[in-house]
């Protein structure tokens, strides 16, 4: 009996998951649960159980905390977007955080010796991309598994970072570099950007529907199309308003969304992106239709290197310093891989989305932040993070479309 009911729920989940938008559902659910727990359940519980509390303290859901959450998650999210690209291929990159560390350290040193901020950033982005490409060449052309190459990269780059930063710490006070985290969009500009974004999306939906009808193709269900739009609009506007009500939208968040949009567009809407999915799904198939599988893999590792460098820049900007523990030696790597996986990107390739990586980063960030606020120990945090990761992957496994069960 209960077996039957369960099956139906699973089936329903599968149906939702099969739509492109549906892959958001599990990660959004995870986010909602975490926010509900730390934001509502815990404060209310404390209020009712402790007699001396005179008001409910919604610290977690305060706009200040959410602002910090977004800033904290940005670095993880940037790396997670890059890692998603190589995960789509069925590869993994364990060196992303170390690459970010090397790039951030280099950035700090360049800024220290007086190189203008924007030139330093460009140099560092180039270096990051080259580090990725070098690993990609070893993987694609020499045929060493990506796990091994990037594990070697992880160790090597950690060492390299220590060489660049013998003291393990360097302050960054270059105005240009600090600007990413410091510059805030004026409130009205933030709202205008949100309006523009939603308007463009609405236009795209209408145009697509009209074109489909004109060419006699089955239309998307209007309910689904507009439902998705309304949903995104709610997400965008509530984010902007919450950020505005504390300070306003930081430039870094806008850049992150922009970079993700670009990466998302490339991966889903161009022949290059299609080839990434094809290689991840069945590389033999990709090879037979004449795709250059090796070059595609090198390019993907170049992208993850580039995004890792960007993450390094964002990190240096946010912390105002570069430290070994904040990048290469800390939890950044596992958090960003976790973010990508919690976002529903398969470790076996061919399935996933860079947008989900951002949400995954928010899940991990929220968990850490919530546990910090409730005074949990570092040990508790680690154990909770592990449990959430498992839960997310389990949800993903259960709700996966049947044909992809092996993946």
């Amino acid at each position, binding site marked *: 009996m209960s077996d039957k009911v369960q099956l139906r729920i699973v089936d329903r989940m599968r149906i939702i998951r099969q739509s492109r938008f549906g892959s958001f559902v599990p990660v959004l659910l995870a986010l909602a649960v975490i926010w509900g727990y730390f934001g509502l359940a815990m404060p209310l519980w404390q209020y009712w159980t402790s007699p001396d509390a005179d008001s409910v303290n919604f610290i977690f859901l305060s706009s200040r905390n959410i602002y910090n959450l977004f800033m904290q998650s940005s670095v993880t999210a940037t790396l997670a977007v890059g890692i998603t690209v190589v995960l789509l291929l069925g590869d993994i990159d364990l060196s992303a955080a170390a690459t970010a560390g090397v790039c951030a350290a280099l950035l700090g040193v360049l800024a220290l010796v007086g190189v203008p901020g924007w030139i330093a950033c460009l140099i560092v982005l180039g270096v990051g991309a080259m580090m990725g490409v070098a690993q990609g060449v070893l993987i694609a052309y020499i045929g060493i598994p990506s796990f091994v190459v990037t594990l070697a990269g992880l160790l090597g780059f950690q060492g390299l970072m220590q060489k660049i930063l013998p003291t393990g710490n360097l302050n960054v006070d270059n105005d240009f570099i600090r600007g990413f985290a410091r510059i805030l969009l004026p409130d009205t500009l933030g709202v205008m950007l949100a309006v523009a974004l939603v308007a463009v999306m609405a236009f795209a939906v209408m145009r697509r529907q009209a074109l489909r009808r004109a060419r006699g193709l089955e239309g998307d269900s209007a309910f689904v199309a507009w439902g998705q739009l309304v949903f995104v609009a709610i997400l965008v506007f509530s984010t902007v308003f919450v950020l505005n009500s504390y300070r306003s939208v930081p430039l870094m968040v806008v850049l992150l969304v922009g970079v993700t949009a670009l990466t998302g567009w490339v991966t889903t809407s161009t022949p290059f992106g299609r080839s990434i999915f*094809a290689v991840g799904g069945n590389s033999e198939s990709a090879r037979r239709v004449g795709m250059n599988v090796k070059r595609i893999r090198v390019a993907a590792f170049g992208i993850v290197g580039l995004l890792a460098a960007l993450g390094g820049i964002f990190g240096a900007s946010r912390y105002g310093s570069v430290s070994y523990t904040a990048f290469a030696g800390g939890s950044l790597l596992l958090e960003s891989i976790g973010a990508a996986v919690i976002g529903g990107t398969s470790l076996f390739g061919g399935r996933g989305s860079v947008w989900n990586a951002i949400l995954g980063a928010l899940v991990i960030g929220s968990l850490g932040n919530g546990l910090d606020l409730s005074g949990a120990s570092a040990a508790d945090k680690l154990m909770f993070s592990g449990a959430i990761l498992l839960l997310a992957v389990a949800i993903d496994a259960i709700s996966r479309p049947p044909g992809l069960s092996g993946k």
Partner: protein
Amino acid sequence: MTVETHSTELPAAPSPHLRVSGIQKHFGGVHALQNIDFEVARGEVMALVGDNGAGKSTLMKVLAGAHIPDEGRFWLDGDEISIDGPQTAAQKGIQIVYQDLALCENLDVAANLSLGHEPTKAGWRFLPRFLRPIDELEMEIRAQQAIDQLEVRTLRSVRALVGGLSGGQRQAIAIARAVGAKSSVVMLDEPTAALGVAQTRQVLNVVRRLRETNHAVIYISHNMRDIFEVADRICVLRHGQNVATWRTAETTTDEIVVAMTRGLDQGGKHVR
């Protein structure tokens, strides 16, 4: 019917579209193809049969340019051609559907059908081709045309993920992918090996459609019922050698099975 009539010359048939002669192929010490002659005409289904290891798949790969023969000559519509790789074969319209289909299960039918040559939107010429936006609508329309052409009726939508399709549907998609690329010769290696009755029927229908659309079809199978249902001619190989070619209408399952297992004349003299 005597053995000699089959063996001295091929039965009268429309002039061959693709013809090969004197194909030799060694794999180390294995002489996989020994002086093979083979031909197929447009609008015809030519079955290729033989016991395990007879050299059927090897011959097909030679025709598709995946193996380069040690010796042998190729003619296409009477003109001698040389095939030095899969790309040249594909350019000449020779397409192969491998036993392991090689479809991307994570992509939908339309994406699989245009994989590697996705149509892109006009007006983005300033970008390199691989970064231009894909014209999804055009892709769907082309996919729908390819599917309609083969009359795959069970497929609901070209936007369905291939991972969720049945074996027969996948086989049809793999065939449609081969046919879509302006092909004149389509080769199928045991397309129904893993399929049930209904699915097999579907694939055989697709094969018939290929004949109706004037393709030259080469069909490898171990299933005599299927072969006698769709093939116009049957070419038997044994131990890497030609045994003979029959018109399906003029032979029987028993005769073919004997030829496959013992050759003609109880293994004595072979043709050519």
